[in-house]
């Protein structure tokens, strides 16, 4: 028979009873496997020892509980899961900006192209298990490119919480999708957020970019001809969202709609600008992926999904193909689709099936 995989050998180290008899008897009689098993065991012990902490004394659960119950019941506890605030004037910080953890509405709504739907991901990673309230300011955003040139806002979104869906529509021209039947566990009235179109012009400056590179201790690669002074127009929004929350303020369901972000260039094609930015030193892989997936055409949804965090599938929502994302720990799910340049998304601490039925029931 074939030699069992290293995964089987690894389990043999810890849980021999979990390994099929056939594999166990093979290994016992196979010198190749026995050697491999030794190596697997040695690595396991080495790593186990490296991760062992000192002070084997039992933890004091009583004292810990006393501390826990004495802590003030803040409405939005934070620390370990809240990312550090993005540094100002650093594009890549701004792009990665995971501050909008929440339940995803924002994500849908975030970003001029570069960030866009990719910002869904922090939500599904379960890396931040503290939900954060969605504020109207999160609805539409432009990445802060000012480290690489001149960023001029030509339209401000004036985001705000609005009293009802009608006001949201009046403000933005977008109808807030109306939920047919609320899933079990989602109760009460939603709060509404609205933000207008945000538009900015970015003028690439080789001098500024060189400065940014120097701050990183790097030399700026020579920009392609014509890039210096070329402009991008970034546009996002408008956006509307309805959000249901538990009495504690933890969001349970978010339904959002937003004009898909677009990017347009003058002079040098956007692809050239993008490829050059991709070549800059110190650009994190995640941001690079986002840039690669960005296109001037707002009709597609760039959505590179890290398979180790999120399972992704597609489903039909009233004739349109939607992307369904589920966090592997099952805590969050979301459904998002694009139609005529408008993204609609439904996300929450619900199962994908529940969210799909919300999505299909939207009016």
């Amino acid at each position, binding site marked *: 028979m074939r030699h069992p995989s290293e995964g089987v050998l690894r389990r043999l180290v810890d849980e021999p009873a*979990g390994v099929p008899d056939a594999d166990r008897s093979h290994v016992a009689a196979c010198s190749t496997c026995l050697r491999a098993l030794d190596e697997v*065991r040695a690595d396991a012990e080495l790593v186990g020892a490296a991760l062992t*902490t*000192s002070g084997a004394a039992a933890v004091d659960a009583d004292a810990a509980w006393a501390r826990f*119950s004495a802590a003030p019941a803040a409405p939005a506890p934070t620390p370990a*899961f809240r990312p550090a605030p993005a540094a100002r004037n650093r594009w890549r910080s701004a792009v990665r900006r995971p501050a909008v953890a929440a339940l995803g509405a924002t994500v849908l709504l975030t970003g001029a192209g570069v960030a866009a739907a990719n910002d869904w991901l922090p939500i599904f990673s379960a890396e931040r298990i503290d939900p954060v309230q969605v504020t109207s300011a999160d609805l539409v955003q432009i990445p802060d490119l000012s480290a690489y040139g001149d960023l001029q806002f030509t339209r401000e979104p004036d985001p705000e919480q609005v009293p009802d869906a009608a006001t949201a529509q009046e403000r933005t021209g977008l109808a807030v999708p109306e939920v047919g039947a609320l899933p079990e566990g989602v109760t009460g009235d939603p709060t509404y957020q609205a933000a207008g179109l945000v538009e900015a012009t970015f003028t690439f400056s080789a001098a500024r970019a060189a400065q940014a590179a120097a701050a990183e201790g790097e030399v700026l690669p020579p920009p392609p001809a014509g890039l210096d002074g070329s402009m991008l127009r970034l546009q996002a929004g408008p956006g509307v969202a309805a959000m249901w929350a538990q009495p504690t303020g933890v969001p349970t369901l978010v339904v959002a709609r937003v004009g898909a972000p677009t990017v347009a260039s003058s002079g040098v094609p956007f692809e050239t600008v993008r490829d050059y930015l991709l070549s800059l030193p110190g650009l994190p892989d995640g941001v690079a992926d986002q840039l690669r997936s960005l296109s001037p055409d707002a009709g597609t949804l760039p959505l590179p999904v890290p398979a180790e965090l999120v399972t992704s599938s597609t489903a039909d929502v009233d004739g349109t193909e939607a992307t369904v994302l589920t966090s592997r720990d099952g805590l969050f799910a979301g459904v998002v689709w694009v139609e005529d340049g408008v993204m609609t998304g439904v996300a929450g601490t619900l199962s994908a099936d529940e969210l799909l039925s919300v999505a299909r029931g939207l009016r």
Partner: protein
Amino acid sequence: MAGATTPVRPDLEEVFRREYARVVGVAARVLGSRDEAEDVAQEVFLSFGRTAVPAGEAGGWLSVAAAHAALNLIRSGRRRASREEAVAAGSDAEVPDVAEAVLTREDRSRVRAALATLPRTQAVALVLRHSGLSYAEVATALDLSPGSIGTTVRRAESALRKELNRHASSE
């Protein structure tokens, strides 16, 4: 006090007392510091208190959350370095030497730093396994098939051992 506190799930204290040691254990494996692990545990339970995770799944949820939170802490670089150093220094004598490997404090820091750069699922599976969760429990907590846990953990260990060897050979 009535009305002043956030409503929490009624079984919170019971789950807290039952799972606290394990949650601290998971975070401590990642952080190498008991104090920091206890801080992480407090935050993890705070979050847990606001979820509707069924009590039966609480152990897995809390362990995964503790691993993520601790890994985030390492990766964010916002650790209290001085405390880590102090604790690590004091711990040298207590860590057993295994498989003829003598692990220095630097080795252990290196392993933890490398841990934070592994694919998240690998890192979490590894930490949970070394925290005493069974293969079946790790599989359930991470929504993976039980058959894949051995492979996932093995990959992580192999990567960490290579990291150690790389430094050993370059020194």
